[in-house]
């Protein structure tokens, strides 16, 4: 079966499972909200500085949320050893990663877009005029987070203290995403918004590098 067809089938399963229970989505959204509110207690949210810090706080919140949301990714495949069933059924182990990282990107993107209006209200920033650009930045950033996060989640699922291990491995690795995405978002939320194409290129580069690495080494991540 072709890579694309297989991935679509598995992606369908990932989406169906999540939308049936919505447990990942709801907990992630609530977590990000909590983080945003808590952050607001540490400075004056309506000041001029808040506008500049806002983008950074938003992305920090996304990263923290992602490092929690990505844990069940491979852990839940251990329950009934469904990972073995998948490995036996797909033609290429990369399909498993591709489907999961696509699903994770979509989940992250969905939570981010749902939270955007709330963020805009809380921190008094104008998002509507640059909305489509924000979607692009959120997408590229979330893709990077998902690619790295899905790969590392496969690693942490096989280790002890996995709940703490995934953030430990993932967060330093995602430093480039944090920096680039924050800068891009900050530029878009500025009083005179603009698109930092350098940043877009950088995010694309990150995504390509790690997707390639995952493609090359993915099957070893699943080995027994």
């Amino acid at each position, binding site marked *: 079966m072709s890579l694309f067809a297989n991935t679509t089938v598995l992606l369908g399963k990932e989406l169906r499972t999540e939308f049936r229970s919505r447990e990942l989505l709801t907990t992630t959204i609530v977590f990000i909200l909590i983080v945003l509110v808590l952050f607001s207690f540490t400075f004056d949210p309506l000041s001029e500085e808040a506008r500049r810090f806002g983008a950074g706080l938003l992305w920090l919140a996304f990263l923290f949320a992602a490092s929690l949301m990505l844990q069940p990714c491979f852990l839940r495949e251990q329950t009934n050893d469904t990972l073995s069933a998948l490995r036996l059924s797909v033609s290429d182990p990369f399909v498993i990663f591709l489907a999961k990282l696509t699903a994770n990107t979509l989940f992250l993107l969905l939570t981010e877009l749902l939270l955007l209006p709330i963020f805009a209200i809380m921190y008094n920033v104008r998002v509507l005029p640059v909305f489509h650009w924000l979607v692009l930045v959120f997408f590229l950033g979330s893709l990077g987070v998902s690619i790295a996060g899905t790969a590392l989640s496969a690693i942490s699922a096989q*280790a002890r203290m996995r709940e703490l*291990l995934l953030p430990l491995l993932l967060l330093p690795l995602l430093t480039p995403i944090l920096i680039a995405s924050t800068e891009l978002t900050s530029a878009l939320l500025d009083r005179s918004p603009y698109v930092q194409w350098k940043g877009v290129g950088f995010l694309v*580069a990150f995504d390509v590098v790690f997707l390639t690495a995952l493609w090359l*080494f993915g099957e070893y991540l699943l080995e027994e």
Partner: protein
Amino acid sequence: MWKRGLVGAVVLSLVGAAAYASFFIAPTERTMGLIQKIFYFHAASAWAGMTAFSVCFVANLLYVWRRQPKWDSLGVSAAEVGLAFITIVLITGPIWAKPVWGIYWTWDARLTSTFVLWLLYISYLLLRTLVEEPDRRALLSALFGIFAFLDVPLVFGAIRWWRTQHPAPVIMGGPGSGLEPTMRAVFFFSVLALHALMVFLIVERYGLEKLRMELDDLRREAEVA
């Protein structure tokens, strides 16, 4: 046995010679004075650290490809030694910064990137402590090591591109950027000396790792029997 001692002595004297050269041969820098001399060890350590991490990366790739335990041993040895050198970089940076800029940590782009690098390889070592079975541990840490190393240029790139917008004091311009010839010579000699130290430490650590593995194997066999 005595051969190792001899090599160790040679390496240490090289390092000692480099220290001597930094203090007595290299001219004192005009504006910063004596404290600038820490640059020779600071920058040379950074280079040695990066070389060690490159060795780790190659070892990781070789392990994933060949699955021979020796590559895993080399990987962890190189990572630990690299981490030691990077720690020196992170300590000497603030020591230099305080008298010159008045503050210990200036969020200089290179130093900040180095800090992230340090965190990545600490995570690599932490991961290893959390996986019991040796082959699994070797494979998983090799894979993480590969991802981490691929991330390094991206980290340095991102920080240099965007964090240097903020006027942060640059810690000692890069080597060769306006280094007077004698200084340059002393610098490269320091690099050589520290690389020799790096190789020596990796070899020693590698030997230690092999012993540790043998011990573990014996222990496991004893448990089963």
